[in-house]
């Protein structure tokens, strides 16, 4: 394991709360399935959250489609290392598109928390920051402490270019907080919040 494992890591619920604290109506958040969805629900429900209960590996690409469709809004994908590793090609796809209004944030705890704490590839030395940089994402942040988290939260309020952040997260799993799980309801409330009619022929 890397030396990073010896440092104190950020607690996930506090980290998520810091990122979405005082959010405005122009911020749309797509968490990954599992822990980051529970974290986002715990931070307070919001019609502009599109919780995922599946689609592993798809969070960043859902965020890209949304960011391209809504250039006047800001989109934050906040997912786990396991979910991001499954869809790592999205770094390349997003690196080519360079949406100005999009951030991909990975809560990297180095384990698959939902399935029994099996080590992920990041614990095995894979560096998501290096991968994001190599895919052409210009702003890549290594968030390890409260100050880094505060800086990231500030940047989320005024995105101006594709951003990636790896947030080193403590592997401890707090109790689950479960949001709505009907996908049709979740879809419709995001669209309604954006002023899109149900089934609109846009």
């Amino acid at each position, binding site marked *: 394991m890397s030396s990073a494992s010896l440092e104190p890591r950020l607690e996930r619920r506090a980290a998520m709360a810091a990122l979405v604290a005082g959010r405005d109506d122009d911020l749309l958040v*797509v968490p990954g399935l599992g822990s980051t969805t529970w974290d986002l629900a715990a931070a307070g429900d919001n019609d502009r959250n*599109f919780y995922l*209960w*599946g*689609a*592993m*590996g*798809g*969070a*960043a*690409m*859902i*965020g*890209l*489609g*949304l*960011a*391209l*469709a*809504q250039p006047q*809004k800001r989109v934050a994908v906040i997912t786990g290392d396991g979910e991001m590793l499954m*869809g790592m*090609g*999205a770094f*390349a*796809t997003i690196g*080519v*598109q360079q949406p100005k209004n999009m951030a991909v944030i990975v809560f990297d705890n180095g384990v698959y928390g939902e399935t029994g704490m099996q080590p992920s590839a990041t614990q095995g030395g894979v560096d998501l920051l290096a991968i994001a940089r190599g895919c052409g994402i210009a702003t890549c942040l290594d968030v390890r402490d409260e100050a880094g988290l505060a800086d990231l939260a500030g940047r989320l309020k005024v995105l101006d270019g594709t951003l990636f952040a790896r947030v080193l997260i403590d592997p401890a799993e707090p109790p689950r907080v479960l949001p709505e799980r009907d*996908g*049709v309801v*979740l*879809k419709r409330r*995001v*669209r309604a919040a*954006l002023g*899109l009619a149900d*089934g*609109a*022929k*846009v």
Partner: protein
Amino acid sequence: MNAPVNAQAWPDRLYDVFKRARIRQVAYVPDAGHARLIERCRADPDIRDIVLTTEEEGVALAAGAWLGGDRSALLMQSSGLGNCVNMFSLMRSCRFPLLMLITMRGEWEEFNPWQQPMGSIVDDVLKLCEAEVYRVREPGEVEGAAERAVQQAFGNERIAAVVLSQQLIGKKVWTK
């Protein structure tokens, strides 16, 4: 729709359908059969063309696009369908529209036997995933099939696939 259509013109008819349907995002893993359509979309400032590393990225992208009010299309070769299957759960769980245009390999004058295993199960896989399937064998059928798929996808929030037979696309030339 019944008038004879130039065999080279059908990709342009697909582009026309995209424009009438106000498709704004076109994602693809390239296939030779889609080369002309991709070229048309890349040249259009009102269409965002998105090259993917793997086809399931395009399924997730289509979900995000619709969340944000954009209509999208996903272009792939038949081998790419197999990469999408789990991500279709997202579309079915949330009833997201998904318009796919799939060019066939492995079914007609195919030189490469490795294309056959996935090519042979395309229609069955699509049906298992509750997609509406529009099979096209003749150039004159392309436009109408695509129109119906657009209606099914965006009107009814379903997965709709236009499957373009290899017979329509022609034999891949292996000697240069």
